[in-house]
């Protein structure tokens, strides 16, 4: 088994919303081409943590970061990193599908266009490739110009994944991507994640432990802003080192 490189190294990360400390001294190494799952009860900070990786928290007034998130050799919170470039390389899929009120095609084409692809043929190729990569192409190939809002919830979410893939990121952040979907659509998303990890590194927040156990290679358990335990998924679920982890896994709380 080859050892994988770290694609992200989080060091001593502390995060504050105004006076409230949401994350306490988090340390984590995310490996390349892994699926890394983050689990924990509601409000434990896992979504906040996810959003520090692509600096989406910058949009919230009053938020502050201390510590480092190292990506490709640079701390993304240091002065010389630009957020716009960062988010091209680290993409995000949200809990609620949020397609733009545009056509299916325009949704996926948005990223490439904004990042400078001008050639029509190239854009079309990218869109088709991304839709295929999100296992959505066959379902929408006859309706690329129809409004994205007309798709079902599951389709919209896969569209959002296609949209994220179209800019060719290296890391894909997924914040409970299937929680608003029915079981069939959820299964499709989980299969997709299996496929995607060959090309991308995926960090997924999930409130479903079964999902974490199914899809991920490594899992981190968060509780009240602390990273209690982070290890191979098998270990976390079969033989957790920390008592709190075990309590959560076995359903004693959360």
């Amino acid at each position, binding site marked *: 088994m080859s050892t994988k490189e770290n694609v992200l190294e989080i060091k001593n990360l502390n995060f504050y919303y105004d006076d409230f400390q949401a994350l306490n001294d988090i340390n984590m190494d995310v490996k390349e081409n892994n699926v890394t799952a983050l689990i924990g009860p509601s409000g434990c900070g896992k979504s906040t943590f996810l959003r520090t990786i692509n600096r989406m928290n910058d949009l919230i007034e009053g938020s502050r970061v201390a510590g480092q998130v190292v990506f490709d050799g640079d701390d993304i919170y240091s002065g010389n990193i*630009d957020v*716009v*470039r960062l988010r091209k390389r680290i993409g995000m899929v949200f809990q609620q599908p949020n397609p733009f009120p545009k056509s299916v095609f325009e949704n996926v084409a948005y990223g490439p266009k*904004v*990042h*400078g692809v001008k050639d029509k043929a190239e854009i079309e190729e990218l869109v088709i490739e991304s839709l295929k990569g999100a296992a959505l192409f066959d379902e929408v190939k006859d309706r690329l110009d129809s409004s994205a809002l007309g798709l079902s919830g599951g389709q919209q979410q896969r569209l959002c994944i296609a949209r994220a893939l179209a800019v060719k990121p290296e890391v894909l952040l997924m914040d409970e991507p299937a929680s608003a979907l029915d079981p069939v659509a959820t299964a499709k998303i989980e299969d997709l994640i299996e496929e995607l990890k060959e090309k991308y590194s995926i960090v997924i927040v999930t409130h479903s432990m079964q999902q974490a156990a199914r899809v991920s290679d490594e899992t981190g358990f968060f509780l009240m802003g602390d990273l209690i335990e982070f290890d191979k998924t098998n270990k976390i679920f079969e033989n957790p080192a920390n008592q709190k982890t075990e309590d959560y896994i076995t359903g004693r709380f959360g």
Partner: protein
Amino acid sequence: MSNLYQKRKLTDKIFKVVFLMFIILALVVLAALIFDIFSKGFVMMDLDFFTRFDSRFPEKAGIKAGLFGTLYVIGLMIPITFITGTATAIYLEEYAPKNKLTDLIKLNIANLAGIPSIIYGMLGLGVFVRTLGLGRSVLAGSLTLSLLVLPVIIVSAQEALRSVPKSLRNASYGLGANHWQTVYKVVLPSALPSIMTGFILAISRAIGETAPLIMMGALTFVMFTPQGIMDSFTVMPIQIFNWTSLPKSEYELVAASGSVVLLLILFALNGLATFIRYKFSRD
């Protein structure tokens, strides 16, 4: 690729500056307006400005007629519009059946809010001054202005009622109150600060209105104050308009003085509305 990227960042920065300049432009204009009017307005103004009537001599001109006229017209307007406006809003929000007719009425009111004020003047002229025979009186003026601001008051009162949380209503029903009791004792008091704020702003607007009153016959050169609601009258904005139109250049300063008085009254009302809004907002 980096070139395009720099271009994108530059575009973002340029538009940020441009849009900020737009806002600053509006602020600068407002500052210029206030500065210009206040600096001109205090040249000839003294306390007698409030106790003198208009005059053929600019240095003797005063705003007494307009001040009292405004007080009478607006004073009469306040109870009329508050009661009618709030009652209509209560009906539309709490009692009206949810059918096409109600939708039509709501649409009608929204439309009325967008009709130019001078048309209300024509309405006032035709209905109140002529048909009802009220003449060019304070009463006719009040009624005309009331119709003008009523749609705005209704719409804002409706929104105020709508934003009363359902939990409050349910608590009242849970205690056995009927619909009217709930509306009167629970919903209305809760919505009242918002209703008041919207109402004060509507009255502010009415104080500044000129065209409809000119249309229905308020006079421009008036040397008396109204003694009763059937008397003829003028209001401050009309006096200001009159002074602005006079050829003698000193009247420009008198008009500024009148504007200062009007603006100060409006600022005070605006401040009152803001104060109410902040004092009573619990969120």
